């Protein structure tokens, strides 16, 4: 692959219009989060929805604003699988948190 071709691929998609669209999507997702918090949902359901939306927002920021979408895939493979694995290891303990209130002696 020639250097010019690779540079063209690198820049393709990274336009100011794209960044503007991503910014609008992020604002809309934030508005959806604020709307959701005023719905009377169970704590764990609310937590799942809000974290899900936050992960989408984080992915958009990393891919477009932090330019990772336009970097080599090897950079992503070096950095993110380890991070995701460590976070998942922490989340294993979250099940305990849901059981603790049930283990309290009655008042």
């Amino acid at each position, binding site marked *: *692959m*020639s*250097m010019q071709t*690779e*540079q063209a691929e690198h820049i393709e998609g*990274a336009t*100011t219009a794209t*960044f*503007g669209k991503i*910014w609008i999507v*992020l*604002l809309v997702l*934030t508005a959806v*989060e*604020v709307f*959701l*918090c*005023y719905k*009377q949902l169970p*704590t*764990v359901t*609310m*937590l799942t929805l*809000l*974290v899900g*939306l*936050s992960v989408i*927002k*984080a992915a958009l*920021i*990393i891919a*477009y*604003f*932090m*330019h990772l979408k336009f*970097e*080599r895939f*090897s*950079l992503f493979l*070096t*950095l*993110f699988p*380890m*991070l995701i694995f*460590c*976070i998942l290891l*922490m*989340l294993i*303990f*979250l099940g*305990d*948190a*849901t059981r*603790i*209130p049930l283990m309290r002696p009655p008042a």
Partner: protein
Amino acid sequence: MSSHQVTAAATASAWEGGGSPYATNSKKFGMWLFIISDALTFSALLFAYTYSRVSNPDWPKPFDFTPSIIFSSVMTFCLLSSSLTMVMAVHKMNHGNRKAAGLWILATMAGGLAFVVLHAMEWIRLINVEHVTAFGNPWNVPLFGGTFFALTGLHMTHVIIGVIYLGIVCQAVMRGKFKAEDVEVSGLYWHFVDLVWMFIFPLVYLMSARVA
């Protein structure tokens, strides 16, 4: 090593001495490594907060729609917009327009400063009106104050450091120093600060919003 040399080294075959596996410069890769390690720190704090929040049915909900949720939403808007202005600064710098890049960095700093001011106002309200401290609060759930101030305090520290960092980069860009890759590296840090807030805002503020 310049970006041209990096690209040339990366595109040459391994037999010709090429083989930069990431086709990126060392500053950018170093910042990525820092971001990943810092992400783990914030993940641990966010997990500690969420664990405490889920395991405690008496967890307080001190955030009224006015002013807390409005304030935190505006803070989110400030950070998201400052990320957009930072992207524009990197874009202008890549096209060799130093003056425009400097102005976009100044706009980014303004967004960061607005965030810090609003956040400080929110802290003061929480301390003076709701009587929440790091060690106690009226609802007898001391973990709330401890985890809240640790998490948001660490994030606010990152924002303040980011504004100072951008100030240094901005004056260097305006004086004809620093290259496009330096602005891009500072941009990576700033986007990371924005990214962390995308988790703090829903988990801390929205999950503890006081619903009438």
